[in-house]
């Protein structure tokens, strides 16, 4: 009898325990994806919702930013470094039940590199000469020249594998191969994903995930405090973080992003075409004051255009230490002892708007007057980015490993240095890991010592998460909220 009672109690406990354990999660996000095709827009929100959850590429990024295999089980690189033969995982199915095969891979890569492609990162595919489906599970990619970071490129959200059968509706009904299936999109409100029971790899631990779009910082605070959302990814109001840290219901995750935040200078516009002036600006800036004042202390100072968590990073902040006297001396040396006047164009994010005010004050202290104009993104893209009509501007470059932009003389800050261009071209074809690291360090040093831009800080990622929720990536090696390993404790 006693045994029977105990057994019942245990069973009841199990049952109620099972009923209580949550298997769904609601994640707050500030920006809503405009549509759901990661291969035809730059919007980070698309990747945040879909990368690795719904769509997978041949390769993928792990939480530490390293590149691991995705749909490719194995690969082989030819002696000359020009041919990559990928072996696909067996038994991978798209969410509509069709099989993934080499034809889908060929379709995806050819679509991304086509003449009329609208892929926002078309450069990732520029080096591909041909893609060949050898047999259903083997794809051979031939490059025009060896490319050291080809596997890295194939891990991007813009390089995920899509199927020709479902491509027409991809923008509203994405069909991928991932551990979650797209379920519903209430436009303006939320996107829901459900677990893919037929997933080829390790199954997701959650049954359902909802992304809820809350743009207003005060509304984000309310939603988190009322526990309407279980986590707020990239929480938009850093001033509240201390309050969340003090509350035992929540954990604050502080991690890194790939966002190098810089005070960009127009290298072809006077007076910034003078290296002395750029150097003066760099020494006039007190990075820590900006991090404390604009970012509530979150952010890592940088001295070049490179992420501190990357193994090839070298600390070059010493090249541009805060030294207003030196800045004044450099300006005098450049023949501008009385300073000068320039424009400072600020896009909407708070790092730019708040940081801009502080930078303007710091520059004024050495005699540089700035005329601040606050721009919307579309205006900023038109005026500063495309029109190159700016003296100074603040922007965070969020693409991973984007130091290559310094080899593009037509890029908005217009830095034109043949040595660096050669170095980056060599880097592209170099396959040897140690040499690649050395080249990256060389590139960091060149742009730091040339004071191309004033390097401020690596943008932090601060998320507020329910204390019982595990497995949310603290860092953002790419714009992804990979939910495949997320679960509830207890």
């Amino acid at each position, binding site marked *: 009898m006693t045994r029977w009672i105990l057994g019942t109690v245990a069973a009841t406990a199990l049952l109620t325990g099972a009923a209580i354990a949550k298997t769904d999660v609601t994640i707050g996000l500030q920006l809503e994806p*405009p*549509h759901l095709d990661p291969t035809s827009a730059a919007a980070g929100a698309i990747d945040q919702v879909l990368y690795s959850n719904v769509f997978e590429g041949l390769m993928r990024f792990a939480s530490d930013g390293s590149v691991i295999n995705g749909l490719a089980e194995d690969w082989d690189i030819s002696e000359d470094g020009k041919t990559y033969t990928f072996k696909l995982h067996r038994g991978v199915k798209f969410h509509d039940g069709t099989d993934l095969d080499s034809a889908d891979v060929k379709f995806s890569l050819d679509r991304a590199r086509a003449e009329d492609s609208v892929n926002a990162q078309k*450069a990732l595919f520029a080096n591909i000469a041909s893609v060949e489906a050898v047999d259903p599970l083997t794809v051979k990619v031939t490059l025009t020249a060896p490319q050291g970071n080809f596997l890295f490129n194939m891990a991007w959200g813009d390089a995920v594998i899509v199927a020709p059968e479902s491509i027409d509706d991809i923008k509203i009904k994405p069909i991928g191969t991932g551990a979650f299936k797209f379920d519903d999109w209430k436009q303006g409100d939320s996107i829901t994903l459900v677990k893919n029971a037929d997933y080829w790899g390790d199954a997701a631990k959650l049954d359902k995930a909802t992304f809820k779009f809350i743009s207003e910082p005060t509304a984000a605070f309310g939603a988190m405090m009322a526990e309407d959302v279980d986590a707020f990814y990239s929480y938009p109001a850093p001033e509240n973080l201390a309050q969340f840290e003090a509350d035992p219901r929540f954990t604050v995750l502080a991690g890194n992003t790939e966002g190098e935040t810089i005070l960009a200078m127009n290298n072809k516009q006077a007076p910034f075409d003078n290296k002395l002036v750029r150097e003066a600006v760099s020494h006039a800036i007190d990075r820590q004051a900006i991090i404390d004042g604009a970012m509530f202390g979150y952010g890592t100072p940088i001295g070049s255009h490179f992420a501190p968590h990357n193994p090839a990073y070298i600390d070059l902040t010493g090249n541009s230490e805060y030294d207003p006297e030196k800045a004044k001396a450099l300006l005098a040396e450049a023949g501008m002892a009385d300073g000068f006047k320039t424009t400072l164009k600020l896009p909407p994010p708070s790092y730019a708007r708040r940081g801009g005010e502080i930078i303007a004050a710091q520059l004024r202290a050495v005699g540089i007057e700035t005329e601040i104009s606050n721009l919307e993104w579309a205006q900023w893209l038109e005026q500063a980015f495309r029109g190159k009509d700016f003296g100074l501007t603040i922007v965070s470059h969020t693409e991973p490993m984007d130091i290559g932009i310094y080899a593009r003389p037509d890029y908005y800050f217009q830095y034109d240095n043949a040595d660096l261009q050669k170095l980056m071209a060599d880097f592209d074809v170099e396959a040897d890991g140690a040499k690649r690291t050395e080249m990256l360090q060389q590139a960091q040093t060149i742009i730091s010592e040339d004071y191309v831009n004033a390097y401020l800080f690596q943008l932090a990622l601060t998320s507020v998460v329910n204390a019982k929720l595990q497995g949310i990536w603290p860092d953002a090696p790419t714009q992804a909220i990979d939910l495949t390993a997320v679960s509830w404790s207890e």
Partner: protein
Amino acid sequence: MLRYAIKRVGSLAISLIVASLVIFACIEVIPGDPASFMLGLNAQPDTVAALREELGLNASLATRYLSWVTGMLSGDFGTSYTYRSPVAEIIGDRLWISLPLALIALGLTVLIAFPVGILAATKRGSWADMSVMGATQLGIAIPNFWFAMLMVLLFAINLRWFSAGGFPGWENPAAALKALTLPAIALALPQASILARVMRSALLDTLSEDYIRTCRAKGLTQRQALWRHALRNAMIPVLTIIGLQFSFLLAGAIIIENVFYLPGLGRLVFQAISQRDLIMVESVVFLLVFAVIMVNFAVDLAYAWVDPRLRGRA
């Protein structure tokens, strides 16, 4: 009445044509290219060109205007640049939140303002009148988004009676109405304050008219004179204000929609402007103009209904 209505319809049509021209001209000159916005910092120029072609942005202004207007006549508002789905569908979805929200808020406004305004007018100078005047002054002065945040703090975070925001969809009408309750109150309070004051002063004006004195002299009680004669005559300014308020509630809920993260029209147009989804902005703005014009038309007809003298005059 019929001639009056026909004349009104004629001016309505002209207003709409002018509005469509002005809206298109104003929005097309905003600097900023939707294609470069969508493709971001790393896109190559040829990719941007390909996307502009795909979006039909390379056609001439006149062609785009004509296809927009003729499309709208047949209910086709075109395809959103950013969302890449039909504008009419997206607007339709959002209207299902904005329209009920505006109606509920307007209902609340009238429910609060009428009794309060009538009470204040009939008890002029009493403590009831004084407190109504004081409270409505406060209601007008308090910014509604701030009041909304206070309600979130109290009812969502502390008491947990409501969600802090969001909209569950109409599949569950009870939950949907619950989600619209706090935003509707936040929207209604200042409007009710305004309307109550208008009601009070309009009623006071008519109550001092000669014909009311005549009514009283004939032997009607004050209450009878008020309900039969004064109230109807006081309705003209009140209807005008209600018409304006409805248009405002439909288009002006942007801030409240953001505070409660409701996917309504206001938030849609706000996002569309920043993303340079021009066709979306044009269509929503046109729709709002259309709604305002229609509300004014309805108010004009209502004038004629409450005041027969206006029928001949128009």
